[in-house]
């Protein structure tokens, strides 16, 4: 059996989740506390991947970043970046695709935290940034865990976007979900089953861990 697609899947999910976490926190903060008039528009855009077929996202991504198009050509010529049929392209597309799963739990966690603890920190002399990192985030750990795990799991499960912009290049863009499709096409059900079973079990375990931790079951068990 070829482990390439499985490794690639987890690598993609890991990189995507990490980068999403970094950009997700400021975005979630802005959505939770910002007062800009643009907020509803940004909120809508962030939520779009929830309802849009992944193929739509993949299609526009393909159009925008193809070297045959002006923007894709400019990226390619000036920076040597080619985002279609490449791993970095997959990461960027996955980030957009999983964005709501990272941003929603964090922003609702922030918005739901006691307003007075934020204000108390300001009065102690802590800046907004310090308050975010030292007071707000440590108090919404369950929301952070949910956001990280859902983004990770959701990236593992993506298919349509990858199919559209990644193609099927072994060890570069051939993730497990594509490999399963491939094996079924080739009538190799045993191979498809192996990949499927691995994905099934790992995602089950990951999600179970979240519910155990956030539900406080583990704490009770250790007590």
């Amino acid at each position, binding site marked *: 059996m070829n482990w390439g697609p499985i490794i690639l899947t987890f690598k993609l999910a890991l990189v995507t989740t990490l980068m999403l976490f970094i950009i997700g926190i400021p975005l979630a903060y802005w959505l939770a506390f910002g007062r800009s008039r643009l907020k509803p528009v940004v909120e809508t855009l962030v939520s779009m991947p929830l309802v849009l077929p992944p193929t739509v996202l993949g299609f526009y991504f393909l159009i925008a970043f193809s070297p045959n198009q002006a923007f894709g050509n400019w990226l390619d010529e000036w920076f040597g970046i080619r985002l279609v049929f490449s791993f970095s392209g997959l990461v960027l597309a996955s980030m957009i695709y999983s964005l709501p799963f990272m941003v929603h739990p964090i922003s609702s966690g922030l918005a739901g935290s006691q307003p007075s603890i934020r204000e108390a920190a300001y009065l102690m002399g*802590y800046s907004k940034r310090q308050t975010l990192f030292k007071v707000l985030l440590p*108090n919404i750990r369950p929301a952070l865990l949910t956001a990280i795990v859902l983004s990770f799991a959701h990236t593992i499960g993506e298919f349509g976007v990858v199919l559209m912009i990644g193609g099927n290049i072994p060890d570069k863009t051939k993730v497990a979900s594509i490999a399963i499709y491939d094996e079924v096409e080739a009538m190799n059900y045993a191979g498809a089953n192996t990949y499927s079973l691995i994905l099934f079990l790992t995602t089950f375990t990951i999600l179970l861990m979240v519910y155990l931790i956030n539900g406080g079951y583990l704490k009770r068990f250790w007590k």
Partner: protein
Amino acid sequence: MIKMNIRKSLLAATGEIELHLDLEVMKGEFITLYGPSGAGKTSALRLLSGLMRPDSGLIEVNGRPWYSGKKNIFLAPQKRKIGFVFQDYALFPNLTIRKNLEFAQGRNKNPHTIQELIALTELENLQDRLPEDLSGGQKQRAALARALVQRPDILLLDEPLSALDSSMRVKLQDHLRTLHERFELTTILVSHDIGEIHKLSDKVVTLDHGTITGSGKPLDIFSHHKLSGKFQFTGKILDIQKQEVIYVVSILVNQEIVRVIAHENEVQEIQAGDQVLVAAKAFNPLIMKLPDTDKV
């Protein structure tokens, strides 16, 4: 000394109100803001602490401008060095009580002050607990201690005792007065409890619909209509019962139920739930000295 003369339009539950605060507080004074809810008491504290920005006016503390509408000065809340006790205490849920105090102190670590405050508020046995494991009164003491670890000059208290039962209140009022004197604070309290105000404050400022309606010593503000010597209280009728030829009316006055005998024609106009005035006329209450308990 705090001088403020500011305006701010607020959206209260009753509609938009224009808050106008013209107030001077002397250094070391303990003043209380009193008034119905929605009068702007909490907003007054938030404006002074910088959590809310006034629309216009001037706030000056010890000669230094904290806010000036004309000169466009607004000192950030981070720089005002104010101790603030929130109505919901605002303790950081993820930190123990001691860690809460240490966090409030920031970089200028001074374990001595923390130790002293923990002792003054009797939190020694609770300092390693999380806020969620504390009772309301304990949280309140912790919030008070935390507000003071930075050694602020000004302490603001937003109805900190309202959620507590009366015996706990009395104890915490003593703590408050002790801390106010020990740390030479200028304290502004928001309170609804006349007994508490009388016990704690040097001066009371009454607010209604965003405007200051009076200020003075608690006794002068609250007792002017009771000095007439009449014995009268307002209350609410709980129950009316017929007993033989008379009626017994149970009335809630403050937190006490009094039973008053009434005639049939008096009862006809009232029913349970009505607000009534209970007054005694042609009747002189007796004041008798009680035996001195020490000598008995």
